[in-house]
C-alpha cells in the first residue's frame, strides 16, 4: 500500500467524519475530539482503540465457554459472537458508504488523477483503518486465541477451532459486503416509503440484537454449560448461515457439507452484489445513486395547513425519511418490554402497570430524535416566524402521533395477556399514551432551551454540548424510570398488589400528573420568543 493511498484514505475518512459530524454518524465508539467546533478528525488509533477494547471484552467473556470443552456451548457462543459482530459491522460500514455516496465525496475522489482500483483501495483503507471497520475483528481474535490454547491443551477439538474460524471469516465478509451494498442503496431507501420502514425496523432490530447480545454473552456459561445435546438446535442450527457448520458437524458429515456450501454461497452472492454496486458507483460516480423513477408531484399538492399542523406534518415527514432515527425511536418503545418483562411476574396487574409506565415514559423521551432528525434544515427554523414554544409543542405532538398509538397498543396487549380484562387493559393503554405525550412535552421543554442561538445543524452532538441540559435531561429520564418502578413497588409494599382498580388509578394519576407538568413546563419554562432569542 503506497503512502498516497494511506494519505488519501485519511482525507476521505476525515471528510466522511466531518460530514457525519453534522449528521451524527461518526465512527461507532470513535473518540470524539474537542476541536474548535467539537470536531478534530479521525485517526487509526482514535477510531479503533475504544471499540477494539470493548469488542475484545465481549469476546473474552464469550470465550469462558471454551474451557468447558462442550461443543454445543462452543457453537452457541460462536453464534452469539457472529450475530453481534454482523450487526456491529453493518453499523460501521453502511453509514460510511452511504455518506461517501450521498454527499458526493466519491465524486471528489474520481476527479483526482488516480485509477478506479486506487479509488477502491482508498475507500477500503479509509473504512477499515480510519473509520474503525477493522476493530470488528476483535470480536473474534481473543476468542480464537483462547480456542487455540484449549486445542493445544486438548480440551477442544481442532475441528471446532477450524469451523469457528470459517464461521467468523464468512460472517465478517458477509457483513462488510452487505454493509457496502446497503450503503449504496441509501438514496433509494430515502425515496421509497416501504424501504424506509423496512430499514427503520432493520436498524431497530440491529440495535436490539447488539443490546441483547452484550447483555447475555456473559451468561452463556450458566445457561448452557450443563447441556451436551443439541436438542432443538439440531433442527435449526445446521441451517444458520456461517455458524451452521459448528452445529452440523455434530450431526452428520453430509449436513456439514451442506452447511459449508450454504455459507460460502451466501458470501459469494453478497460479494457479487456488494462489489457490483461499489464498482458502479466508483466508475459512474454518485449519479449512479438514484436508479429510482421520479414521480412528478402535482403542483396542487402545495396545500398549506393550519400553522401548527403544518409544522407537525413537516416534522413527521422529516423523521419518517430518517430510518436510523426512526429505528432508534422504535427501540425506545420496545426496549421497556425487554427490561421489564420479568419484573413483578407474580403480580400480573403490577407487571402491567410497570410496562405501561415504562413504555409511556421511554416513548415520550424519544422526542429527542425529532430534534436530531432536523439536521441542516434546523437552520431554516431560525429565519421563520415560528415561536420557540411552538417548535417544542410540534415536536411533542409529532412524537405522540407515532408513539402514543404504539404505546397504547403495547400496553393494552401486554395487560390483556397478563390480566385478561379489556377495560383494565384499555385504561392502562390510555395511560401509556398519555404518559408518552406528557414525557415528550417535558423533554421537549428541556431540549428547546438548549438549542444554539445561532442558526445551526441539530443532531445528537448539538444537544450534548450543554452539560447542564444533559444533566437535567438525564435526571428526568432517571425520574421517569424510577417513578415507573416505584409506583408498582410502593403498591406492592402497601399490600395493594392485587387491587386492580387502585393500581389503574395510580398509573392514571401518574400519567395525568406528567401531562400537567409537561404542559406547565412548555408554558413557563421555554425561554425566549424565537429560536435566536
Amino acid at each position: 500500500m503506497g503512502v498516497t493511498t494511506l494519505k488519501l484514505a485519511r482525507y476521505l475518512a476525515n471528510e466522511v467524519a466531518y460530514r457525519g459530524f453534522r449528521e451524527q454518524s461518526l465512527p461507532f465508539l470513535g473518540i470524539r475530539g474537542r476541536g474548535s467546533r467539537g470536531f478534530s478528525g479521525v485517526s487509526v488509533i482514535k477510531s479503533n482503540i475504544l471499540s477494539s477494547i470493548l469488542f475484545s471484552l465481549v469476546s473474552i467473556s464469550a470465550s469462558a465457554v471454551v474451557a468447558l470443552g462442550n461443543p454445543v456451548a462452543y457453537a452457541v457462543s460462536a453464534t452469539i459472537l457472529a450475530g453481534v459482530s454482523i450487526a456491529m459491522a453493518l453499523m460501521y460500514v453502511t453509514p460510511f458508504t452511504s455518506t461517501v455516496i450521498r454527499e458526493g465525496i466519491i465524486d471528489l475522489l474520481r476527479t483526482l488523477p488516480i485509477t478506479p482500483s486506487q479509488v477502491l483501495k482508498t475507500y477500503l483503507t479509509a473504512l477499515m483503518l480510519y473509520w474503525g471497520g477493522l476493530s470488528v475483528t476483535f470480536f473474534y481474535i481473543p476468542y480464537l486465541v483462547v480456542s487455540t490454547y484449549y486445542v493445544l491443551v486438548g480440551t477442544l477439538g481442532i475441528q471446532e477451532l477450524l469451523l469457528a474460524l470459517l464461521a467468523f471469516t464468512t460472517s465478517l465478509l458477509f457483513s462488510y459486503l452487505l454493509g457496502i451494498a446497503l450503503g449504496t442503496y441509501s438514496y433509494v431507501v430515502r425515496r421509497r416509503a416501504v424501504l424506509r420502514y423496512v430499514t427503520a425496523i432493520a436498524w431497530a432490530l440491529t440495535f436490539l440484537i447488539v443490546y441483547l447480545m452484550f447483555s447475555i454473552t456473559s451468561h452463556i456459561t450458566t445457561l448452557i454449560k450443563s447441556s451436551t445435546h443439541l436438542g432443538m438446535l439440531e433442527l435449526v442450527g445446521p441451517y444458520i448461515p456461517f455458524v451452521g457448520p459448528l452445529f452440523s458437524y455434530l450431526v452428520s458429515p453430509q449436513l456439514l457439507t451442506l452447511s459449508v456450501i450454504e455459507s460460502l454461497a451466501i458470501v459469494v452472492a453478497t460479494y457479487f452484489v456488494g462489489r457490483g454496486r461499489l464498482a458502479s458507483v466508483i466508475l459512474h460516480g454518485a449519479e449512479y445513486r438514484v436508479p429510482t423513477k421520479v414521480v412528478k408531484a402535482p403542483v396542487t399538492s402545495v396545500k398549506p395547513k393550519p400553522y401548527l399542523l403544518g409544522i407537525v406534518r413537516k416534522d413527521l415527514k422529516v423523521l419518517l425519511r430518517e430510518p436510523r432515527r426512526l429505528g432508534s425511536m422504535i427501540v425506545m418503545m420496545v426496549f421497556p418490554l425487554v427490561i421489564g418483562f420479568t419484573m413483578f411476574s407474580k403480580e400480573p396487574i403490577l407487571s402491567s402497570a410497570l410496562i405501561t409506565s415504562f413504555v409511556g415514559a421511554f416513548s415520550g423521551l424519544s422526542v429527542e430524535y425529532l430534534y436530531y432528525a432536523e439536521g441542516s434544515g434546523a437552520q431554516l427554523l431560525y429565519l421563520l416566524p415560528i415561536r420557540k414554544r411552538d417548535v417544542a409543542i410540534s415536536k411533542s405532538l409529532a412524537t405522540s402521533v407515532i408513539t402514543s398509538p404504539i404505546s397504547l397498543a403495547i400496553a393494552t396487549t401486554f395487560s390483556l395477556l397478563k390480566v385478561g380484562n379489556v377495560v383494565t387493559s384499555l385504561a392502562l393503554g390510555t395511560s401509556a399514551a398519555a404518559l408518552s405525550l406528557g414525557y415528550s412535552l417535558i423533554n421537549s421543554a428541556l431540549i428547546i432551551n438548549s438549542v444554539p442561538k445561532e442558526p445551526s445543524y441539530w443532531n445528537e452532538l448539538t444537544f450534548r454540548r450543554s452539560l447542564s441540559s444533559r444533566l437535567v435531561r438525564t435526571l428526568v429520564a432517571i425520574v421517569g424510570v424510577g417513578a415507573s418502578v416505584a409506583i408498582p413497588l410502593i403498591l406492592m409494599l402497601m399490600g395493594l398488589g392485587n387491587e386492580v382498580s387502585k393500581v389503574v388509578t395510580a398509573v392514571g394519576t401518574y400519567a395525568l400528573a406528567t401531562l400537567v407538568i409537561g404542559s406547565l413546563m412548555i408554558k413557563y419554562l421555554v425561554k425566549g420568543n424565537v429560536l435566536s432569542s
Partner: protein
Amino acid sequence: MSDGVGIEYSNVWKYFGGNAVVKGVNLRVRYGEVKVLLGPNGSGKSTLFKMSVGLVKPDRGSVRVGDVDPVTDALSARRLVGYVPEDPLVYESLEITEFLSFLMSVYGVEVSESRVSAVIKALGLEEHLGKLIGELSHGSRKKVMIASVMLRDPKVLVLDEVFSGLDVSSARVVKTWIREKASKGAAVLISTHVLPLAEVVADGISIIHEGRVVAEGTPQELKEVLGSSELEDVYLRLTGYSREFEELVKALATT
C-alpha cells in the same frame, strides 16, 4: 413607517469577537425602490441582511423593516420580510411541494393553484417536482427558496446574493420579478456580485467595504462622480483593488 421607508439601518454597528464587522452603516430603502448592496466577501452585507429578520442584533444603532423593529419583534419582521439567504436553507428530505406547503403553513398564506404553477414554471422547477430537495443542485435549491418568497408576495424583500447559482433564464425571471415588485410598491434590498445585473435592476447602489458604506447613488451618479464609464471600475476602485493583483496572476500563468 409613514415616511415610505421599507428598510432602514441607522448608524448600525456590529462586533464579532471584538472586531467591528459593520461600522456605522446608514442605509435606507423606500417602498417602490430597488437598492443593491455591493461589496467584497466579508464586507458585512450578509450580517446587515440577517439583521432585517432579527437573526443578528446590532450592537449599536437601529434597524427597522416597515413599522417593525426586528430586535424587539423578530416574529413580525419575519412575517413582513421575504428573506432569501445567501446559502439556501432547505429540508433536504422533503420534496419541493412539501417544502413549499410547510412554509406557506408557517406564514399562513393561502396560494392558488395557478399561482403555484406559474412560479414553478417560471423558475424551471417543473422537472424537479417529485424529487427530494437533497437531490437538487445548489442553483435549484436557491430557486426553491426564491419560489417560496414569490408565492408569499411580501412587501419587503431582502435577497442575499440572489443571482448566484441561477441559470441565465432564471436570473432573467428573478430580475423581472424584482423590478415588477418594486414598481408595485415593494422595498427591495439585494446583494450580488453580478455587476451588469445590479446596474440594470438597481434604483440605487450602495458600496460597502470593510463594514462601511463607502459610496451611494444611482449607477449613473456613481460613474460620474468617479469619472468612469464602467460600474466595475467604480466598484474596484472603492473596494481596494490593486492592479498589482493582475500582475501577480499574469506571472503565475506560465504556459
